[in-house]
């Protein structure tokens, strides 16, 4: 019999999907300003209205989630900033795994592997940068100086390039890469099989079986 372990609770999965959809909308409506050739789509500023609606959802969703899931939030933030020598080993072994399907050299991983944790860190940092620079551009449009607003655009775009490229990688690994099957299940249904957990999240699986883990 296949045994399943819970990886992501329902609130976490809902936050993931709400945030992902709002970010994709922000990505596309922002792209028309980044690519001069697409500027024509932004005419009559209807893309700006959509961008702002999605931005409101992007900011409000975690504000609702955090106080209701305080433990999972703390655990998540702590995890984003815990790095060890195993991460270097993971980065070295990753190309052989993702290109050739060879898992031999992959060091044991926690609830998130090095790549997932790197993306998670970028989500946190870029989320803060997007929010601050975006709110300044939105609400201080007439009061801030031109130089300040231009630097806000600059940092908004730096975050956009970094998070946007990583978003493509995230979607690719979650949906398209031939080896990724359980990662998708973990964020869709919330569970992964215990065999997969043992193989790919050994450190986390140990915590789960000891009953010590805090759910994420």
């Amino acid at each position: 019999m296949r045994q399943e372990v819970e990886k992501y609770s329902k609130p976490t999965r809902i936050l993931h999907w709400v945030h992902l959809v709002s970010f994709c909308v922000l990505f596309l409506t922002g792209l028309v300003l980044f690519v001069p050739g697409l500027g024509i789509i932004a005419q009559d500023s209807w893309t700006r209205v959509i961008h702002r609606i999605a931005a409101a959802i992007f900011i409000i969703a975690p504000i609702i989630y955090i106080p209701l899931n305080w433990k999972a939030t703390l655990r998540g933030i702590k995890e984003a900033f815990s790095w060890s020598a195993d991460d270097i080993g993971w980065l070295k072994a990753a190309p052989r795994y993702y290109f050739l399907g060879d898992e031999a050299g992959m060091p044991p991983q926690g609830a998130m592997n090095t790549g997932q944790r790197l993306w998670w860190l970028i989500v946190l940092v870029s989320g803060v940068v997007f929010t601050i620079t975006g709110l300044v551009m939105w609400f201080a449009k007439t009061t801030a100086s031109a130089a300040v607003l231009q630097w806000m655009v600059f940092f908004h775009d730096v975050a956009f390039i970094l998070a946007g490229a990583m978003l493509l990688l995230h979607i690719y690994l979650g949906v398209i890469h031939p080896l990724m099957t359980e990662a998708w299940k973990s964020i869709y249904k919330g569970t992964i099989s215990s065999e997969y957990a043992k193989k790919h999240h050994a450190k986390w699986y140990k915590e789960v079986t000891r009953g010590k883990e805090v759910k994420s």
Partner: protein
Amino acid sequence: MYVLDDHPAVYGLPVDPQIAASTIAWQDVIQPIGWVVGGLTILGLGFNYLVARANINREKEKKDAARS
């Protein structure tokens, strides 16, 4: 195009106009970097897909062959 008959200061215009650093940083640095990063990401993912799919199919065939 406008031609000024006198010194720019007479018209209240900047004497030595400069392009803001933030404009240069956006137009000459961030824009091209964005194109390169975006392009390389898409190419890299496409390349990974082709290589990974071919390898994983080969592994599967090997396994199937070993089983039969």
